[in-house]
């Protein structure tokens, strides 16, 4: 019997890390028109961004995992005698927590605790990683739950979408909505605060935006762990990664944006995740 960690595919946790720590990832789905694809299972991030930028597609939508998806995962793990800490995307951004809650109610005898991290993307990913490491280190169920909650409160996430169009179309713009529109082209630096997307600051060029991310990262180090959120390969991402190396003893976790997160950030987004000890 062990404590097992379940998360959802918005965590964008690199596959090798998820596998090594025995984390089960429940996929959300991406819809192109009527056709649904399970994130990372039925569509890779490369396939997704190729379709997104092909210019031939209507704007894709996303959908939370079904209750059955969670029930299946929870049943399998509890059937093996495990206890479950299920760590998820902010319920202000996704209905994923609702599905998980209903699944939990279906299994009254299973020992399952749900944690709303108030985060998304690799910020969620780093909380999941920390939680899974606590479980792997043999901590008690309560200690693992506490680790997930504590890490949620100590993890910050800043990102710069290439355009606000996708966040706006997907309805995930949160408190940053006011910055859409206007005469000037601007690069907003967004932050996930209290489970929602906020506008943190605004600059005029992509290079300044990346410089601002570096500045934000350097303001308050060192960190227990840092991560970089990116899509595709870019020089600025490589340079930002090199800068982040100096801010934590652990290697930087490099998280490519997956299909579901990509529906909302659009192509070319870049960001940082900072987790304090």
């Amino acid at each position, binding site marked *: 019997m062990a404590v097992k960690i379940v998360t959802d595919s918005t965590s964008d946790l690199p596959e090798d890390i998820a596998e090594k720590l025995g984390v089960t990832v429940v996929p959300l789905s991406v819809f192109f028109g009527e056709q649904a694809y399970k994130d990372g299972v039925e569509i890779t991030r490369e396939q997704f961004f190729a379709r997104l930028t092909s210019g031939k597609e209507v704007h894709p939508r996303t959908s939370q995992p079904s209750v059955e998806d969670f029930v299946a995962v929870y049943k399998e793990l509890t059937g093996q005698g495990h206890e479950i800490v299920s760590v998820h995307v902010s319920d202000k951004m996704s209905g994923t927590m609702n599905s998980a809650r209903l699944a939990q109610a279906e299994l009254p005898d299973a020992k399952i605790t749900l944690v709303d991290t108030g985060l998304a993307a690799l910020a969620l990913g780093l909380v999941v990683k920390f939680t899974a490491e606590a479980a792997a280190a043999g901590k008690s169920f309560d200690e693992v739950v506490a680790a997930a909650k504590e890490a949620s409160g100590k993890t910050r996430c800043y990102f710069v979408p290439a355009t606000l169009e996708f966040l706006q179309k997907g309805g995930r713009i949160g408190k940053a909505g006011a*910055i859409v529109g*206007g005469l*000037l082209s601007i690069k907003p630096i967004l932050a996930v605060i209290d489970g929602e997307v906020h506008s943190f*600051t*605004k*600059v*005029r060029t*992509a290079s300044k935006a990346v410089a601002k991310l570096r500045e934000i990262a350097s303001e308050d180090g060192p960190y227990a762990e840092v991560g970089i959120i990116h899509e595709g390969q870019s020089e600025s991402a490589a340079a930002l990664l090199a800068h982040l190396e100096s801010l934590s003893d652990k290697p930087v976790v490099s998280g490519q944006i997956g299909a579901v997160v990509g529906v909302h950030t659009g192509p070319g987004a870049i960001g940082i995740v900072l987790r304090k000890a």
Partner: protein
Amino acid sequence: MADIPPIQLTDQSPLTGDQYRQMFAAGTHYVEQHVEEINALNVFPVPDGDTGINMLLTLRAANESKELPPVGSGTVAEVSTGLSRGALLGARGNSGVIFSQFMKGIAEGLASAETCDGADIVAALTCAAAAGYQAVGTPVEGTMLTVMRGAAEGVASMTGCTTADVLTAALSAASAALVYTPEQLPILKEAGVVDAGGQGVVAFLAGALAFVTGVDVPLEIMTPLGGVAGGNVSHAFLEHTEEDMYGFCTQFVVIGEGLDVDAVREQVGAMAGSTVVIGDDRTVRVHAHAENPGPLLSLGVSLGSVDQINIQNMDLQHQQFMALHGYTQDEQTALAVVVVSPGDGLTRVFHDQGAAQVVGGGQTMNPSAAELLSAIQRANATHTFVLPNNPNIVLAAHQAAELADSDVTVIASRNIPQGIAALLAFNPDLNAEGNADSMRSAITDIRSGEVTTAVRSTTLDGMAVAEGQAIALLDGSLAAAAATANEALIAMLDVAELEDGSLVTLYRGAGDFEELAAEAAGAITARYAGVEVEVIDGGQPHYTYLVSIE
């Protein structure tokens, strides 16, 4: 102010409160008579903050102060306090703000004066000079501060003298200090001018002396190198008052012969509010706020040829503001930003980016401390940031901050690009301190350019400039002079050494510059690889382009 009652002081008894008030009005009158010459003493050959106008409007606000005792009553202490309160609220431009601080000092010096004799004037001037130095963060010598201190030091040792004796000595010492200002400030020397604010102080003292002696005091005003053509009124000016921020702000110049300024002033005053009419028999500048600018222009046309017409729809600006902000002014917010904008397009940009209040004003139209204070109050926030966007509005913003009941932080943005950068850095979710830091830091990250037309010939920063040439300034220094605005712009950008990935934003001015700006944008992208250009309709007067480089 045009009609000073011809009171002759027949004896040398101390001034009564009423006479003190008349002496002050006489000083104001002298500034008014020389307002054009004082305006012309600007260092840069660009339409700059009009020192003369700013001082005059500040002095007028003092004369019209609501806190003055009724005419014919009041002690000197009461009158000088009332004058000082009016100046404090009405101060505009750096020169006006500093002068209002002088007056605050004067009121302190006369705090227990029933009447005013020579010794009182000595005390008043001493306090005035001290108050001026205190008000300015880093006092610079060679400015009106120096001139006022000169006046104070020139009379410091006088005892038992009459007001006339003291004012004579003060004027003479102030004039000597004024003539010396180019030796203290190299930029004045290069431009061949004395300090304009200092000249205003001298004019004011001359007026005061003329009142107590009953004899006209001649005043010589140095003209800048290259001269100022008497008839060439080079820049328009603008002032707003709270009581009528609506209708059309209408400005123009009438050029003719045998013009009667006083008659024009009377006619304009009967047709519109917030009127300023100045000039001489050949050139008259008119500024007024009217429901309909037509009759004003018709009046101008009937008098001579009309030039430099500038009409702004203040109703429209007000409506846009109300529409954008949906009358949500009752709800108090934690943090807000008040900005000063010189043009419609820029006002829209500022609103887009979340400014709570936009005050009209800029290069040649400096808002008063009271206007800024009123905007701060309308913003209705517990902590307000003010972006003056002009070096000549910074002090008035500080004065407004002092007068406000709520917390106010002035972020000393010196131009529009800095103001926009600071506003973009504003985050209402953060605390005031964090915002102040990031807004200040945003200002240092940006380079700013301006392209305008030289209003006189001069040599500046080693560069010869001919009147009418296009000139470009980079971060406040002259960078290029050329035949056309676009040539000057490109030459300035050469000096700026653009990097790959730079963004150049051109805010084009009021006028028919759309095609010109499109050409400029094409020229810039062709010349500098990897540089992006964005053109925005700024709508500012006088400046073909305001430029941000980041």
